[in-house]
């Protein structure tokens, strides 16, 4: 009994340590005085086979930095879906939340099991056709973007509120603790994002499913679980006895994945949590390396396959006939290093790493700004934050090459948009008042915003006024002018995607029409 207790303890310890490790990397995903982030902060996606799949199916070369994902697939082929039971941070969160919230009974309808495979097949078929939505359902992306967009901001808001209160009421211990928290355990600025609540609702829904059935998400919906399941059908690590024992059948209710049946053990469903080895009253159950055996796997009919492939194959072209979002929405600004928009959408797995690391809090998740299929992709919202001239962090953390890692010199020359004045609102134009805040902040060494002095006549006297002007061959679209414009509401200078380095055609036009 002592030994079997250790197995559960082992698994839980590994789960908690992995979760803490990923949380630690998450907190490190921030500028800390060095231009290069010293830790592999996006490790979670470098081991993510779905991210690797998205990368593989996108045009352009495969990002070999994703090699750990391939290692994970090989290990899964040998040892089964241990990732789901031991490492996946969403799985660990689900286990923890289920313990607190209570869990539903097993569903009788075992037909649900195949939904995840059908979803995976649909997503992969769509990816082949040019529509990549893997990231929407990738559990690791769901985990990290929920953390980035919802939970971490809420955590910071709570702590900031507490420390504000302590400051106002002069509470000694809390006031002393503040610098420790601020420098190590909190974001430098209170994080704020556009889709926080929606992102949280999706996450809560997945947690709520635990009330329907234990590990409902992992059993029935998770496409990563499906991919790992497909790899582990012939896993060498197998359970003995494989089927339920006629005299006991406790595994049928104990197994969180409901992988043990009278007809045998479903290797592709088992997450190798080893609970059954602990809970077996006769201590009969054990796992051993035995070589592949025929297993009682989830049955996918030919018709199921056909329907899911057809769905993906249909969705891809229909999505592509939608008008190009970046042409329809002039304010769709992508981070520097973003590849061509269609390739970008095929590479971005919506993980949220770039939004987390963005030093100016300029990157926000898209809702429909980038079209129906651009949900959660990063947008630069220049009114909320600007792209810091000497910063290259987003390209450093992007796991799939949707954002290229730009050397600083190249980044400074990368044009992500063009600033345009709204002369009806800009103070010198509209009200003949001095301002030039945009010119002051413009970061290019030869300023992209300059001014001309003009004589203006108002209330009976003539005076000189400095009128700003954007030089389109200098502007890189960083957006600091839009962020800092002192007007209330909409800025009087806005960045549009009229000129972008990543779209060579508009760049060619730049030479003639705008240069």
């Amino acid at each position, binding site marked *: 009994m002592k030994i079997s207790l250790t197995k559960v303890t082992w698994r839980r310890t590994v789960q908690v340590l992995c979760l803490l490790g990923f949380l630690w990397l998450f907190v490190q995903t921030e500028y800390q*005085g060095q231009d290069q982030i010293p830790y592999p902060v996006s490790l979670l996606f470098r081991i993510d086979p779905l991210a690797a799949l998205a990368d593989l199916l996108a045009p352009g070369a495969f990002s070999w930095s994703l090699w750990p994902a391939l290692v994970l697939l090989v290990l899964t082929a040998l040892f089964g879906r241990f990732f789901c039971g031991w490492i996946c941070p969403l799985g660990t969160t689900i286990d923890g939340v289920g313990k607190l919230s209570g869990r539903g009974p097993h569903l009788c309808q075992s037909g649900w099991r195949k939904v995840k495979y059908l979803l995976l097949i649909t997503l992969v078929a769509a990816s082949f056709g040019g529509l990549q939505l893997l990231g929407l359902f990738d559990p690791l992306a769901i985990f990290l973007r929920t953390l980035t967009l919802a939970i971490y901001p809420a955590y910071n808001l709570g702590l900031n509120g507490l420390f504000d209160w302590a400051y106002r009421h002069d509470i000694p211990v809390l006031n002393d603790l503040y610098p420790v928290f601020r420098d190590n355990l909190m974001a430098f600025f209170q994080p704020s994002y556009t889709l926080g609540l929606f992102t949280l609702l999706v996450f809560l829904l997945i947690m709520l499913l635990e009330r329907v059935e234990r590990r409902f998400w992992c059993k029935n919906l998770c496409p990563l679980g499906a991919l790992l399941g497909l790899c582990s059908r012939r896993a060498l690590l197998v359970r003995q006895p494989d089927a339920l024992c006629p005299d006991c059948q406790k595994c049928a209710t104990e197994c969180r994945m409901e992988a043990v049946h009278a007809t045998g053990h479903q290797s592709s469903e088992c997450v190798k949590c080893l609970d059954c080895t602990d809970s077996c009253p006769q201590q009969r159950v054990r796992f051993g390396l035995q070589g592949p055996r025929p297993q009682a796997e989830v049955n996918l009919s030919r018709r199921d396959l056909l329907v899911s492939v057809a769905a993906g194959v249909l969705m891809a072209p229909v999505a592509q006939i939608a008008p190009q979002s970046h042409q329809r929405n002039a304010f769709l600004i992508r981070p520097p290093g973003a590849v061509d928009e269609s390739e970008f959408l095929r590479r971005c797995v919506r993980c949220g790493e770039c939004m987390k690391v963005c030093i100016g809090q300029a990157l926000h998740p898209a809702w429909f700004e980038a079209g129906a299929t651009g949900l959660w992709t990063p947008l630069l919202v220049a009114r909320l934050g600007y792209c810091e001239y000497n910063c290259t962090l987003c390209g450093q953390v992007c796991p799939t090459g949707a954002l290229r890692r730009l050397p600083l010199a190249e980044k400074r020359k990368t044009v992500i948009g063009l600033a345009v004045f709204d002369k009806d609102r800009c103070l010198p134009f509209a009200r003949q008042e001095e301002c030039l805040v945009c010119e002051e902040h413009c970061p290019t060494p030869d300023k992209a915003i300059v*001014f001309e002095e003009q004589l203006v006549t108002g209330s009976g006297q003539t005076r000189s006024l400095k009128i700003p002007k954007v030089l389109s061959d200098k502007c890189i679209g960083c957006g600091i002018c839009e962020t800092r414009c002192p007007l209330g509401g909409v800025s009087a200078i806005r960045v549009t995607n009229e000129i972008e380095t990543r779209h060579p055609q508009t760049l060619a036009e730049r030479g003639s029409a705008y240069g």
Partner: protein
Amino acid sequence: MINLDRRQFIRSVLQSALVAGSLPLVDLLSAPAMATTSPLVSRHKGQDIGQLVEDTLTALGGMGNFVTAGDTVVVKPNIGWDRAPELGANTHPEVVKAVIEHCLEAGAAQVRVFDNTCNDPRRCYVNSGIQAAVESFGSSRVRIEHMDRRAYQEVAIKEGRELRRWQFYRPAIESDRFINIPVAKDHSLTTLTLGMKNIMGVIGGNRGRLHRRIGDAVTDINLVVPSDLTIVDATRILLRNGPQGGHERDVEWRHTLIASSDIVAADSVTATLFGFQPEDIPTVVAGAKRGLGVMDLSRMRMV
């Protein structure tokens, strides 16, 4: 010291209002006056920055004239931009360091360094070299810190010309001494940015709004946060593409410091380094008009 009377006056206004739980109201007219009729201005040149700071301060009677034992001192450099020292956008880190050394020698109990930056504060502190310079003291008496967003206090300004209410950084008002060490550089709207405009780094709010009538706005905040000593860093001056620059070719080495307890006088003398007259600088003109200091070069006692 005249500025100190004013500093104490404003501090007491702030503190009594905070105790009463009301909005502090600074009446600019009833506060003690700042200007003397013929300010002492120290202007020195030298290649070695440590020696240069020493010479400049000695001419004014040494730092002991401004800082007494046990004082809490705010040293306010310009750390506004994510730019390296050689680009002339921020106060030179060696100037900051030498000034702090003099404060410590004069017996300051605590020296605090901060600035409300324009670019990301972490990048500015690191890449200006100022964070490393301050931390090199390794002393608990010297601290560089990021602005604490909780410490901004709204202050009502009676007789303020452009600002009637604004957010001020409490540690800047509450310190015993405030030593202003701006860098001298080009600025499109104010022609030059010098000591007076450097005070924009200790206020909060939507600072761009001050640009509408910047001379009076900057004078308003200077009347609330008086500088006990202004040391303008003109070791190198940024001539074009200010206030953040980016080309070394826009920077000229002058190896000069200008210091005075009269901020308008210090700014006026610095303007001449660029070939301007004090009248060309709107902040200087507004400051002089409203009694913040003297801009008439002929009335200054140069040492």
